[in-house]
C-alpha cells in the first residue's frame, strides 16, 4: 500500500508513545542509573563505572544459569517447531471438527502460568499424579523433585505441552491461506506428499514460522513462573533459569547494582539473539 507522507500522524501515535515511554523508558533509565552506582541509602550513592558489569560477567552462578537458559531455549525450539508443524498438517481443515480442534488447542495458552506449574506439579507427583504414578508403576524411578534429569524432563515436557499449540495454531493459519489451485497443480504434476510439503507448504509457512520462532525464543528465554511453581528451580539450582536468578537477586537479596547490570546484559542478549534470528531468516529469503 502506498502511504501518504503526513507528520500529523504523530498525533495518533502520541498516546502509545507516552504510555510506552512511561512504562519502558523511565524504568530502563532507572536500571541504567543503578547499574553504574553503588547505593548504600538515600543520598549515599557512588559512581562505580563498569564495576558491576565486570563482576557480573565473572559470576559463576550467572554463567551457569545463562548456559542452562540457552540449552533450554534450544531444546524448546528444536522440539516445538517441528512438532507444531506436524500437528498443523494433521488438523482437519473445515467443519465443526476443525473449530473443536482449534478451541482445544487454544486452552493451554489461556491458563495462567502459575496454574500451568500447579497442573504439572500435581500431574507429575508419584503419589497423587497420574503421570508420576504411571511412570512409577511402569518401573521407572521417576521423581521430579529429587532427580535433576527428571526435573529437566518435566519442565521441558510442561513447556512443550503449554506452547506447542501456539506454534500449531500459527502454522495452521498459514496453511489455510494456501490457495486450492496450488494443490491442484501439484496433483496434475503427480507430486509426492513430501514434495508438496517441501515446495508448496513450507515456503508458504515462512512468515508465520518467523513469528513462531521469535515468540518461542523470547518467551522461553524469559520463562519464570512455570518452573518456579513446579520445581522452585531445584533440585539444587538445576532448573533455575535467568529470570529466576535475576528475581532472587533484585527482590530477594536486594542487590540493586548487580541486578541492574545483570538486567541490561539479559535484555541485550534477548535483543541480539532475536535480531540474529530475524536477519538469518530474512537473509535466507533473499538468497532464493
Amino acid at each position: 500500500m502506498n502511504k501518504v507522507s503526513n507528520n500529523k500522524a504523530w498525533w495518533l501515535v502520541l498516546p502509545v508513545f507516552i504510555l510506552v515511554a512511561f512504562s519502558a523508558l523511565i524504568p530502563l533509565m532507572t536500571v541504567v542509573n543503578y547499574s553504574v552506582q553503588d547505593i548504600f541509602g538515600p543520598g549515599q550513592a557512588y559512581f562505580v563505572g563498569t564495576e558491576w558489569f565486570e563482576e557480573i560477567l565473572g559470576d559463576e552462578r550467572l554463567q551457569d544459569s545463562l548456559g542452562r537458559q540457552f540449552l533450554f531455549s534450544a531444546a524448546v525450539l528444536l522440539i516445538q517447531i517441528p512438532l507444531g508443524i506436524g500437528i498443523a498438517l494433521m488438523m482437519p481443515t473445515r467443519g465443526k471438527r476443525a473449530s473443536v480442534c482449534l478451541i482445544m488447542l487454544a486452552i493451554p495458552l489461556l491458563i495462567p502460568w502459575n496454574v500451568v506449574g500447579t497442573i504439572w506439579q500435581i500431574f507429575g507427583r508419584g503419589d497423587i499424579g497420574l503421570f508420576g504414578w504411571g511412570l512409577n508403576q511402569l518401573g521407572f524411578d521417576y521423581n521430579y523433585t529429587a532427580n535433576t534429569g527428571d526435573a529437566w524432563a518435566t519442565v521441558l515436557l510442561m513447556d512443550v505441552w503449554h506452547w506447542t499449540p501456539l506454534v500449531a495454531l500459527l502454522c495452521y493459519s498459514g496453511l489455510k491461506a494456501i490457495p486450492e489451485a496450488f494443490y491442484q497443480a501439484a496433483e496434475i504434476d503427480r507430486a509426492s506428499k513430501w514434495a508438496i510439503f517441501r515446495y508448496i507448504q513450507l515456503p508458504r509457512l515462512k512468515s508465520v514460522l518467523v513469528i513462531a520462532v521469535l515468540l518461542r525464543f523470547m518467551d522461553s528465554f524469559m520463562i519464570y513462573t512455570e518452573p518456579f511453581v513446579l520445581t522452585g528451580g531445584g533440585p539444587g539450582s538445576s532448573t533455575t533459569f535467568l529470570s529466576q536468578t535475576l528475581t532472587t537477586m533484585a527482590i530477594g537479596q536486594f542487590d540493586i547494582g548487580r541486578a541492574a547490570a545483570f538486567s541490561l546484559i539479559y535484555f541485550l542478549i534477548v535483543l541480539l539473539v532475536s535480531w540474529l534470528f530475524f536477519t538469518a531468516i530474512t537473509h535466507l529469503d533473499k538468497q532464493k
Partner: protein
Amino acid sequence: MKMNKRKNFGITAYIILLMLPIYWLLNMSFKTNQEILGQLTLFPHDFTLANYATIFTDPSWYSGYINSMIYVSMNVVITLLVALPAAYAFSRYKFVGDKHLFFWLLSNRMAPPAVFLLPFFQLYSSIGLFDTHIAVALAHCLFNVPLAVWILEGFISGVPKEYDEMAYIDGYSFPKFFVKIFIPMIRSGIGVAAFFAFMFSWVELLLARTLTSVDAQPIGAIMTRTMGASGIDWGVLSAAGVLTILPGLLVVWFVRNHIATGFALGRV
C-alpha cells in the same frame, strides 16, 4: 482415505494427551483430601463440591479472581484505546521516525519482565499507585500495547484505502469516519487484539504479584502463597486452578471463528 485415517488418529491422540493434565486437575478438584492422598482414583468416588464452596465463600480466595478480572479488563480497554489510532497511523501514513518507532515498540515485547521488576516497583510506589489495579494494568501495557499495534496494523492494512477517501468525499470528519465506519470494518481485528491482550494479561504473574500486596492481589499470587505452607490443600488448589481456566474458555468461545486468522496476527 487411508492418509486421512492416519491424520485423524494422530490429531485425536494429540488432543487426548493435551487434555490429560487438565482432566487430572478437574478430577482432583472434585475429590476430598482424604481421597486424594489415600489412593489414586481415575474419577472421584467420593464426589464433593466442598473445594469450590471454600473458594466462593472465603473472601481471601474469591477477591483474587475479582482483582485479576479488574486489572485485565482495564488493560484490554487501555490497550485498545491507544493502539487503534496508532495502528491506523502506522498503516496509512509515512511520518518522521515511523519505522524506528515501530521497532522500538516491538522491542518492548522482548524485554524480560524480570528486568523491569525493581524499577516498576519503585516507580509505582513513588507515585502512590502501588497495590492498585491500574498499576498492574499499566505495567501489562508494556508488552500488550506493542503487540496490539502490530496485530491491528496487519488488519487495517487489509482494508483498502479507497474507503477512507470515499468517506472523506461524503463529508465525514475523521473522528466520525473512524468510529462510525472504520471500527465496524475491522471489528474481527479488534476482537483478535482484545483476545491477545486478555490472554497475556490474564496469564502473567511476576509483575502482577510484585506490584500488589493486599488490595489488588491477583489469584495467581494467592495460589502460590498457599503453596509454601506446610500441608498443601490439594483439593482447593485444584479447584482454584480449574476456575482460572474458565474465563479463558469463555473468551476463546467468543473469538472461535477468528482464531485461525487471529493467530496469524492478520498477516497471512
